[in-house]
């Protein structure tokens, strides 16, 4: 274990920028992990992810499946005695892991988000059929939900064709502009 030096720019500074809160706030009571609905499916307890960041063990934090499995329900943030926004912290770690090119430990969630954003970028709105198709193709979980999807289709709840918004260009430009701004900030 090699503690990070105070003056060099670390993941902690990036987290501070994105979330406006210092991970040092956390006093490791574990209430977040205690209340987390997804806790039993995680490889690393949420409080431990914060601990890794506090210790400067950034890779361990960024490589955990926990950051991807976090459902963003904010039970932790709501009950945290230090009012630490752990859900926002997890969002930040996901973003920073991607920025650093770290292979997401939970591919399913990652692929889902990718598929989701792709739909969004193309159509301006979520095209659910397209999302399921892309997600299945990328994860090879072809059979899952097969029984439910046709039922959805029959009920008319999932459209076969996408609903495009009129000004799809506007949404595409948002994606582009965000990428440009983020690139500028990192350089």
């Amino acid at each position, binding site marked *: 274990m090699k503690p990070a030096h105070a003056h060099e720019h670390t993941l902690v500074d990036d987290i501070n920028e994105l979330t406006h809160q210092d991970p040092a706030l956390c006093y490791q009571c574990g209430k977040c992990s205690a209340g987390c609905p997804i806790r039993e499916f995680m490889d690393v307890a949420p409080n431990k992810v914060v601990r890794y960041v506090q210790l400067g063990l950034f890779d361990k934090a960024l490589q955990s499946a926990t950051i991807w499995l976090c459902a963003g329900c904010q039970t932790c943030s709501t009950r945290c005695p230090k009012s630490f926004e752990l859900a926002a912290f997890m969002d930040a770690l996901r*973003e920073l892991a991607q920025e650093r090119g770290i292979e997401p430990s939970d591919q399913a969630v990652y692929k889902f*988000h990718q598929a989701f954003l792709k739909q969004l970028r193309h159509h301006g709105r979520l095209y*659910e059929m397209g999302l399921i198709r892309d997600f299945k193709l990328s994860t090879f979980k072809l059979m899952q939900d097969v029984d439910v999807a046709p039922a959805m289709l029959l009920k008319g*709840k999932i459209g076969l064709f996408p609903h495009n*918004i009129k000004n799809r260009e506007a949404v595409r430009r948002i994606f582009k502009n965000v990428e440009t701004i983020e690139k500028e900030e990192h350089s």
Partner: protein
Amino acid sequence: MKIGYFPGCSLGGTAKEFDISLRAVMKALGVELVEIDDWSCCGASSAHASSHLLAVSLPARNLLLAGQQGLTEIVAPCAACYSRLVIAQHEVANDAGLKAKVERAIESPLPAGEIRILNVVQLFERIGPEKLQAAKRVDLAGLSIAAYYGCLLVRPHEITGFDDVEQPVIMDAILAATGARLVDWNFKTECCGGAHSISHKPIVTKLSKKILDDARQSGANVVAVACPMCHSNLDMRQVELRKEGGHQDLPVLYLTELLGLALGLGRKELGLDLHFVRLPEQAQTAPQENRA
């Protein structure tokens, strides 16, 4: 009364009946919904997992459109959309640097005036229980409802300022107008894992089961929801739970559907036949079964 409407993607698809029932109930109550022209997805639940700026900019575009349309109050029935919209609004209001970046991303300054964003429960709070009471046609005495708020309606409390964050009661109070009994239960705000509905079905099935079991044990014969993701999880996952065996169906209805029934609207008008688990025809007005 006239109010802006941000349906969000789900209400055009998997949560079609939420849209159908909301429109029907609003019509019955004389409230005009003005849909935001050419609205786009708010980014939930994926944008915030990859870019904070994107997660704020996508809702911001919709706030911009609403502002251009002169709307000062909008309802976002989907809890996830509601959450993204209020968070985006809060963040740009409190972080000038972020605001500047967002305005660059959407290529326009944000509207200066305040736009009030309501979730569906707040919408009914706004309309007022008296109005609901006055329009009531059918007494739903046969129903024992477990009102399920889910995670995103009440949180983060500093931003939503809506109801009690641990023991919310406002949806219960609104549904009480139907004449149904509201049960006190444990998992009003427990997360169903909605974000993982597609990526990790077993997780969601397990969480949904826990929630449904507690609702039933607390004496409920129907669960009321105000979120499309909660609905698709709790309703659709019962298909798997049936296969696992030992499962007893528990209908899951949108808040708007229950209110619609009380207003005397037809099951079809409310999209009730679109659910996987059907509400039995007689359930709503049948005398309540004995509960121990």
